[in-house]
């Protein structure tokens, strides 16, 4: 297959991480492996001694594992939305970071469910989900929706990669070990850039782009219904579906911005991921922050105004400095106000600031998930009395922290390893771009 000059230039520019690892990246990987090993120690304890090693107890039956689960599924929206919506709208500026987004989707959708598994008391009986299925349970919906979503995301990522794999395969300049090239050859599926093959990929991607959006919405709605379908204050809310969906798109966009910034920094991609891209995504962030803020306001205002006894119990905990007041304030200031301000004020609308805002927002969104889970579970309809004192409040144990950090490290490690196997910029797609940046780049070389 003949490779265009544009693609050749692009490949030579981004092939660095594929060909050799820098010392820093080796240290980074080693560090992540250490964190994962720490997580494994936590896992060992949990499997060996039971869930007693976590902070979860009869009242707070779910803790940060579920918060992590929602969080990861949330950030998986990055790819779904960017590649789905922007692909359908044929927005050219999506191209430089589309792969980052799709990688986030696939990896986060793999890591997320691991956290729900950590909440399951009998992992040895997981097959019961298949042999005794009950379709009425939101957990079954979740299992079906997430596996379908994961399959779709993998297909979408792979379809976009086929052309790149073909380029890697047919570029003798690319200095990669033989086994790696073999993989490229196998994964490229004999793609020869014929119109017929291109048409097939185009059609498939179009189909997936259409499907991935409703799928993503379903996944997060179903996830919210795990909470919304119960009769608990703070959960039993009709807006939980759209609220979760929007929160997910929002946090997904935040993680995408962080990833864009990090890769731009590490791989010096300033030519491709430009300031204007940050501004564009920043505008998206602003709209999403406004929407998310609106939902948040609507949710709490309704509960507060109606002031039903149980709703108020939860609200009192959220507005009480001695309980969750600080976290709640942070979740709203950092999660809504700060990103909006940064994007709204022209002098702050810079990649650095936007990334900073996104980072704070992503953290705030994690806190928000925690605030959805724990205070509600600490406020059952019947007062918590006549139960072991240590059952009353939830506190995160070291096992839960180490597994959380281990999960995050796994996410980062998979991302790092992926960036060593495929170029972080879609070479084939970029080489078809009319964007001036590529021309500029070519002229300068």
């Amino acid at each position, binding site marked *: 297959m003949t490779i265009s000059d544009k693609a050749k230039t692009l490949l030579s520019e981004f092939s660095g991480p594929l060909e050799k690892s820098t010392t820093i990246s080796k240290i980074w990987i080693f560090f992540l492996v250490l964190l994962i090993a720490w997580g494994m120690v936590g896992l060992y304890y949990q499997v060996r001694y039971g869930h007693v090693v976590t902070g979860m107890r009869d009242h707070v039956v779910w803790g940060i594992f579920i918060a992590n689960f929602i969080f990861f599924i949330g950030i998986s929206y990055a790819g779904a939305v960017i590649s789905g919506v922007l692909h359908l709208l044929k927005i050219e500026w999506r191209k430089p970071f589309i792969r980052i987004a799709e990688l986030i989707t696939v990896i986060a959708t793999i890591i997320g469910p691991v956290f729900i598994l950590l909440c399951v008391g009998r992992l040895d009986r997981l097959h019961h989900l298949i042999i005794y299925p*009950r*379709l*009425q349970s939101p957990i079954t919906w979740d299992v079906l929706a997430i596996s379908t979503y994961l399959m779709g995301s993998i297909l979408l990522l792979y379809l976009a990669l086929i052309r790149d794999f073909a380029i890697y395969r047919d570029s003798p300049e690319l200095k990669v070990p033989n086994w790696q090239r073999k993989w490229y050859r196998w994964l490229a*599926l*004999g793609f*020869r850039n014929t119109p017929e093959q291109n048409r097939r990929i185009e059609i498939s991607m179009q189909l997936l782009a259409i499907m991935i959006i409703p799928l993503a919405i379903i996944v997060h709605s179903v996830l919210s219904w795990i909470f919304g379908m119960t009769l608990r204050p703070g959960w039993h809310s009709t807006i939980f579906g759209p609220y979760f969906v929007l929160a997910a798109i929002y946090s997904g966009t935040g993680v995408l911005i962080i990833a864009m910034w990090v890769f731009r920094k590490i791989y010096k991609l300033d030519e491709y991921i430009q300031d204007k891209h940050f501004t564009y995504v920043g505008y998206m962030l602003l709209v999403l922050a406004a929407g998310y803020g609106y939902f948040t306001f609507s949710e709490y205002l309704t509960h507060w105004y109606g002031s039903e006894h149980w709703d108020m119990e939860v609200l009192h905990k959220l507005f009480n400095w001695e309980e969750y007041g600080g976290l709640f304030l942070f979740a709203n200031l950092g999660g809504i106000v700060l990103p909006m301000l940064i994007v709204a004020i022209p002098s702050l609308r810079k990649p650095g600031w936007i990334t900073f805002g996104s980072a704070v927002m992503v953290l705030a969104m994690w806190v928000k998930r925690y605030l959805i889970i724990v205070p509600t579970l600490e406020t059952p309809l019947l007062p918590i009395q006549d139960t072991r004192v240590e059952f009353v409040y939830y506190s995160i144990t070291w096992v839960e922290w180490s597994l959380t950090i281990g999960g995050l490290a796994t996410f980062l490690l998979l991302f790092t390893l992926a960036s060593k196997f495929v170029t972080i910029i879609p070479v084939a797609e970029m080489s078809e771009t009319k964007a001036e940046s590529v021309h500029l780049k070519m002229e300068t070389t």
Partner: protein
Amino acid sequence: MRSKFIYRYIVLLGCLVLSLTFLKSQDEGVEMMRSRLSLTVIQKDDNKIDLQADFRVRKERSYERMAGVPVIFLISRDSINEEIGEALTNEDGAAILEIEAADWIAVDTQTITFIATYEGNDSISPSDRDATVMRANLALEGLELDSAQKQVQLTLIGTEDGTMKPVASAEVNLYLKRLFSNYKVGSAETDDDGIALVDFPSDFSGDRDGNLDLIAMVEDHDLFSTVRTARKLEWGQKIEEGEQELPPGLWSTDAPMWMLITFIVLMGTVWGHYIVIVLNLFKIKKEGKILTS
């Protein structure tokens, strides 16, 4: 057979729990524990007699039941005591022995004296109790006055001057047998003909055939001790098995049809498309092979 087996276990367990409770107090002092027996003679309508001895042991301030205690029953005739048999107390502390009236009591006997005794042991004092009764019989009959009103007629006859005659002014209780206990429907006093009438409500449910188990008893009577009769009457509302099934809901084992269809359609659509896409991938591979070869 199995229920018998289970029952034995319960008796044993009860016995041991109680025994151990007792042992604990034993540790504190070696003094003898006082026991107490009470004896009820239950005359049944099938010419059988239940001798029921309730055994209690004094523990701290109260008398407690004890299981597994052997109680010997005797009959006293012409100042001669003859052993009838022995029974162990159950977990309610009652030792029950059923005897055939004809085996022990001649038809013309005026009064009969039964004795229940516990021999005692190193830690529990012996005790005994006697009860003197006259033969009596209670008959139960259902009267349907009209479709709405039902009455139970209870006829009590007892020994008087060597023959059985109606007994007046005796209180008779009517019970309905239910799963865990007997429900007292009502009570009435017998008239000169030995007849007592008790109204019976028509809104009780029976078994599948509408049968109700009725029990009538004269209890703790001065002369007769307890006289009992039981009878099945078709007076209850029928319980239909079908009605027992709860209506299907979100909580039932099988999903509602609409949900199943929605899922099949949704999943079928999405995975169907996935299959189309994967097939496309295979076609790409095939085309690639043709090109290279």
